[in-house]
Structure formats: C-alpha cells, structure tokens
C-alpha cells in the first residue's frame, strides 16, 4: 500500500504542473496578503481571526482549482482505459481509490500549509504577531468543508465526464465572485467580510470571533454533502 501511495504521490505531485500551480498559488497568496489582508477585513486587525479567515477564503478557490486539476488524472480517458487493467489486479478497488485520494489530500495539505505558512510569516514580519492558536478554528471551518465538498463534487462530476471537471473549476472561480447569502458562501469570504460588522466591538475595539449558527450549519451541510458525494463516487465499478 505504501508503495502505491508513494507512486501516486510521485505521479501527482512531483511534476511540472503541480510545481507551476504551487508557484501561482504562492504568488497569489502573497499578493492577497499584501493588498487585501494588510488592510484588515471588516475594520478588524489584519491578524484577527476574521482577516485570517477572509484570507483563506480568497486563496481557497485557486487551491481548489489545483485539487480539481489533480482529480483530472483520475478521470481522464487514458486513466479509464488503464482502469480495465487495475481492476483486474487483486487490490481492492475502494482501498486503491482511497490511497489515491490520500495522495491528493497530501497535496492539498501541502498547499494549505504553504499558504498558511506564508500568512504566518507575514504576520510575524509585519506585525510581530505570534499568537497563532486563534487561527485554528477559522482554518478548520474554512478549509475542511470546502475540501470535502469539492472532492466529493469533483469525483462525482468527473465520473460522468472528465471534461466537466474543468467546468467545475470555472464554477469554483465563479462561486468566489458571485454574491450568495453570506452563511452559504462556500469559501466564506463574504461571511468573514460582513458578519463582524454586525458584532459589537470588544474592549480592544475588535469584534469577538464567534460564528453564527447559520454559518456553522451551512459548513456542516457542505461537509455532509461532500462526504455523501464522495462515498457515491468511490463505489467500485462493476467488473465486466
């Protein structure tokens, strides 16, 4: 299993496309930090959990496009032709699929750590801010539902037609631009920008980081839908 995982990691992550997308992600993340985050979101500090959440929601569409790009490897025509052979091997199809998804998840985690690392570096250098523990909740709430939902949707749609994954990339980009009710914003950008304005300022002038029930419910919903879609899509193909 480890051997297959290593092979998948090498195939998916150690190539010029992933490296190129990593560089694009890095440039975009730094651009977002130095142009938007530095000003602070919703009049909060640039290093507030709100600003951090907004930063993550800005970089998340590009990260998700990268992940969807990795999924195209699984659903391409060539891959489907090879599937006939791999399905004939003794390895369990579901386990094989999970291993491959682990490789994608590792790639995703690497990207997330990279952009979060850039942000923390930015906070230390520009604001001498080191209390990173406050960022754990916004990170989890922002990243996890997005990833699970997009993985589920990506696999589901990729199984129908690999070309639809590119359509999903456009949708992912559009979702970050088009206005939806704040709580239902998949990436959370409009929620982090607007919700703090409705909260009273604390003693330090900053609104406390509290998430509304509607937002948490929506995040949970995305998570559940993502898991359901994922389970549906990784079910084994019947051997012909």
């Amino acid at each position: 299993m480890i051997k297959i995982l290593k092979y998948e990691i090498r195939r998916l992550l150690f190539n010029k496309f992933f490296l190129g997308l990593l560089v694009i992600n890095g440039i975009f993340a730094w651009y977002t930090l130095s142009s938007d985050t530095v000003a602070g979101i919703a009049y909060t500090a640039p290093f507030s959990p709100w600003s951090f959440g907004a930063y993550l929601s800005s970089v998340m569409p590009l990260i998700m496009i990268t992940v969807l790009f990795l999924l195209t490897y699984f659903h391409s025509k060539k891959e489907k032709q090879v599937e006939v052979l791999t399905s004939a091997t003794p390895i369990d199809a579901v386990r094989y699929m999970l291993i491959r998804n682990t490789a994608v998840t590792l790639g995703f985690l690497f990207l997330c750590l990279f952009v979060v690392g850039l942000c923390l570096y930015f906070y230390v250098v520009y604001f001498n801010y080191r209390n990173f523990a406050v960022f754990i909740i916004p990170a989890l709430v922002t990243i996890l539902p997005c990833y699970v939902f997009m993985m589920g949707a990506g696999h589901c749609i990729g199984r129908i037609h690999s070309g639809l994954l590119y359509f999903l990339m456009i949708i992912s980009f559009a979702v970050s631009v088009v206005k939806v009710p704040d709580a239902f914003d998949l990436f959370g950008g409009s929620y982090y920008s607007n919700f703090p304005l409705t909260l009273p300022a604390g003693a330090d002038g900053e609104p406390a980081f509290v998430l509304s029930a509607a937002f948490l419910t929506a995040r949970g919903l995305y998570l559940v839908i993502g898991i359901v879609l994922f389970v549906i899509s990784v079910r084994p193909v019947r051997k012909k």
Partner: protein
Amino acid sequence: MKTFFLYRVELRRLALSKFTWIVTVLSLCGPLTGYSFLQQSNASVMSGQYIANPVLAGTVIGAILWAVLTLIESNRVYRNKTDILTDAIVSPIRMAFVRMTALASLSAAACFLCVLAYLPYTIVKMDYIFNPALYMMSFLILMLPTWWISILLAAAIYQIVQRVELAGLLYVVCVYFSFSRFANSDFFSRWINPIIITYSDGFSSLYYLRIALYTRVLWLALAGGIWTLSLICIRRYQKNLLVSFWRSLRKVYLPVTAAALMVTGIMMWRGQPFVDHGPAEFQYWDYYNTINDSKISAVTYRLTAKPESGQLHSIAEYTSTSGGSGIKSIWLNPGYKILRIMCDNQPVSFTATSEFQGDSQRTDFNLTQSGWKTLTIEYEGYPTMLRCFAPYTWGNEVTSDYVSLNNFSSMPSLTGLNFPGTFTLELTLPGYMTPLLNHQFIEDYTLNTDGTKTWTKKESSYIIWLTACDYNVESFNAAGMNVNFVYSKKYETIMTEYNMQEALAEVLSYCTEHLGRLSWAGGSSLMMVQRSAISDGGNAGEGWVEWGESTFTAGNLSDPLKGANAAEVFVHEMVHIWWGGLGVNCGSEWDVSNNDPWSDEGLTVYTTYRLMKDKYGEEYAKQYYIDVWQAAVDIQERGFYYRNPEYLDRLPEQYRADLSTMNRGTNLYSRMPLMILKAEQLVGGEEKMDEILRSVQSRFANNGFDKPFTYQDFLDACGLQEEDLILD
C-alpha cells in the same frame, strides 16, 4: 496562393461550424449584460449607459467566447489524432496562421453584426445625444481589437503548452490578472477590459478613446509577438517542445517578427504619452521660495490648440528690464517637449531633470549673460495626467469638442524670475469654441483665415483653469446677483426641460435668506460652469462654481428622491460660494497633511443638509444626511488603523496614503457636519444657528486666506467649548 486557398477553406469550414455560430450568437448577446449588472463605466451619462457599458461588457464576454473557440479549434486535430496526417500535408505553422486569420475574420464579422444589432435601440434611447462616430469607434477601438488580442493570446498559450485544459487555466489566470488590483493601478495592463471610466454626452469622449486605441495597439503588438513566438513552439515531427523550437527557429523571420512586435509593445508601454513618468506619490510644490533676481515687465502666453492630434503648441515670452544670469528652472507638464529656449534671439541650452512636483517636471537652463530683454520658451505636446491620478484617469485634454488645461498643462512656471503680476494670453482655437479663462469669459478675438479664432485677454495671477467648448450661456438674475450659467450646447434641451435656471435661483435665494447676502452681489457676476464628466465632481472659487456633467443628466435630475446623489452636488458646490472662496474661508481644507476636520466642507455640508431638510422634509434629511454621516464616523472609529495608529508605519506607503485620504474625507464631510449639528442643538436650534452663521458671514466674508474663520472662531460665535462638540 496556397495560404490564401487554405484560408478560404478554413474560413468556410469555421463559418459552417455549429460551435462558431453559438459563439457568434452569444457574443451578440454579450452587450445586453452591460445595460444592467456588468457596468464598467459611468452609467449616469447616456453615452456611458447606452454605448460604453454595453460595448465594454460585449468586449469582455466576446473575448472569452472567441478564446474558447480558438482553444477548441486549435486542439481539434490533436483531439481527433489527425495531426500526423494534416502535418504531413500542410505545415502546422502555416495552418496556425490560416486558422488565426480565419478566426480574426469571423470575429470581425461578428463585431459588425453587433454594431448593426444594437444600433436602432441606441439611436432610439439616446435620441438627439446619439453620436454615430462615438458609437462606431467604440466597437472598432474597444471590442474588435480586444477580441483579436484574446484570440491571439489563447492560440499562443495553446501552441506553447499544447494541452487544452492547461491552456484554458492559464488563459483564466491572464483574465484574472486583467481584472486584478494590480491592473487597476496601471491601466495599461488591462488587456481584456480597457478602461473607460466615463464617456461624455456634452463634451468629448475622445480622451478615453485615444487611451483605449493606444492600449489596444500596444496589446495587439504584445499578443502578436507572443503568438508569433508560439508558432516556433508548435510541435513538429512528433518531437517535444525544445526540439520543435530548435527546428522552427531556423525560420529566421519568425523570431525576428516576434521580437519586433514585442519590443514595439514594450516600447509603447514604457513611452506611453498619457501618464507622467514621475514618482507614484504626489509630490507637493515647494519651489516658491526662490530668489527672484530678474525683474519681468511683461509676460505673454501664445497657446495654439491642435485638436486633431490632441496637442498644444505654445510660446511663453518674458520681457525683462534687468534680466539676471545663472541657472533658472522651468516647471511644466511633463508631457510637453520644450522645443527651444531663446534669450534675446540666442538659443539657450536646457536639460530636463528627473524632479517632479505636482503635475510639473523641472527643466533647468543657464542664462549666461545678465541684462537680457526677451526670453522665449517654445513647447509642444500632449499634456499628461499625474501618475497618482492614473487609476481615475483624471487629466487635461485637447480635443475637437473640448479643451481643458489646468496650471502647468497650459503655461510654464519659472523660478528665479520676478513676475509683474499680470500676463497676456493669446489663445488660438477652432472657430466654434468659446474659451473661459479662470472661469471668466474672454471678450476679444480675431478671426484667422483658416477659420480659427485667436482670443486675447490680459489677466492677473496665472492660468489656473482654461477650458473651451461650444458653450451655451444663460444669463439671469437671482437673489440680487447677476448669474451666467454656462453649459455645453448639447445640454440645452435637458436644462430647459428640467428648468435648471429656476432650481439654481432657488438655492441662491435660500442661502441668501439664511446666510446673508454676499457682499459682492449685484456688482460682480457669478459664473456657473458645467464641465466634462471626465473630470466629474464639483468645485467653487471666487465668483464661480462648476459641476461635472453627471450632475445635470436626465437620469439624476428626474429622480429627486434618490438621496444625496450627483443631482445634489450642484447644491453643495453653490453653497461653497458662502463657505470658502469669496465667502467665509475656513482655511485648512487644502492642507492635506492636516487631519483637522475643520474646513469649509463641514459648514457647506451642513448648509446643504438644511436646504434639503427644508425642501424634502426631516425624514429625508435624516436618512440621506445625518444617518450617512453617523455611519461613516462609526466605520472610521471601528477601523483597526484608526484605533492603532502605531501600526500605520508598517503599511506600504500607498495604503497609508489611501487610509489618510479616507480618514480625511470622513473628518471633513461627516464628522464635522455632525459636530455642527451638535452645536446647533446646544445653541438652541436652527433659527439660532442661522443667526450665528449670518453674523459669521458679515464678519468673516471676504477675509481670504490671510484671516481665515477658525474652529475657535466658530466655537466663540456659538459660545461653546471644544469639549462640548466631542461626539459620543
């Protein structure tokens, strides 16, 4: 011949393709989005609403659609795995060229269909304002070249990476870049969404079209260069990128053409004539305190507008009784090229420096002998806009419909010379234009043989504002004042329809009644001038008021309950006659380093609010004035950097400047009006406040800049202490 034959075949094939038709139909629908949600230009002027916005929306949507078609068509032979066969028959480079020309031809046809499709609707909606030339130029300058640029870039990306999905992704990155904040700060980067902040109905839109044409040619050269370079990358003989590149490199004309085109684009970018090449931040003038060792007895500026090229040719002549020697400096708009400097008919050497202040650049010249009599400076060129104003594209213009030149865009300033205090202006303009110098008419002119007129005027101070247009002038009397209302002739119908004369008279009467009669009323005349939407907003000074075009558009004037909008800007600027300029001067507004909320603006905004309350009622005034001020102050106080100014130093300079401008705006236009409103409540109500303000007018009007009406004077007049007006 073979290429032409292939072109015909490819054109026919594409023209019969179902997908081409879908793209054409969708491209035709693109401009529809510009009428509503995809508005990129000022929709308050009719040319913006019915020409600029639909064309810009159609430009972006069409560009993306044609790029998609290009990617699909470029990938077709590879998708079908017929490239081995087709490459054996026709060179893939030739085929790429043929495909490109066929796609360009079809997109041109689609653009022409767009022109025809929207023409009847635009004519009907715009009525007498419709300008066929502007309509056609918008499509031909904005839409068609952008579609071509998009096709070239999409094809180039595909030819380099030869993977359709990756090419699509990279194309999306390019589109994103064009809409990013970076591209907003440097509009030459906007390859898919050319900048048209506004068109003008009554003046000229050529200013923006010139910028758009320049950027389109620039990007056509760049995209053409990248596309030509990409031809070398086309995979040949089933080889990879590097081997194919090496083989195609032997066609020397390809890299040479690519390099030539790209160098042309880069040179055009670097040498662009629209934005000055000075520092990004505004540099304040500080050169006034120089030694004046040459006594000048007369100054003459001979300005000739060249609307066909957008240039100004000018000769500044200085006559001296005792001209001193040494290094002198000229400060002039950096867009102008100094042609020669002559001292007593002898040429003088000069050097342009890299020092910029305001909208001027310093040029040094050396006068070797003292006692000279005449110094002439001849310059010509295209006035540039300040780099810090580039995102708003505020600048000066010389076009066939409008001339607008301010300060150093019209005349040079010389340091080291002692001026006589007056100058003579000789201004040559097309015969149909009427000039205004510092918002006053020029009466004398001579008709030249070529149909132009040379206007002459002796004037004190400097050329601060110089405009010319085919103006209409309405003279009337209001509240005991002689008023000249000057606006573009194209607005005659709107001004009559909405009875603007009466509306203006109403404001003048209100202010006279509540604030007192201006000391100069009845003697001097008040000039009210409309200016182009390109430099929108408003302004007021000694004996004049001016407004941007948006103030008087039918859309704004027909909806008086829209709130404190552009239609009320004219009220605000008229109130400035009482607060600021000739009226009571409160000092600190122009000192931008000062964050003090006290200025003319506070009292002007407060008086405007009172007038609107009088006219539309308390609820309206609360909703559109008091609540808006309070919201702005609340937001300011929530701001992290407002609460923690110690962090400001860590911000990039541009952000610091933006924050400072924002805070200053809130202080002037929201905080101070709220403080005055509080003062009104503390002194005993509106009538009492009117009484105080009338007494202030009688005591402080006409004091000018030397003896301004200070905040302490205001507190004393109200009998209040500073702490009384601190907002809760």
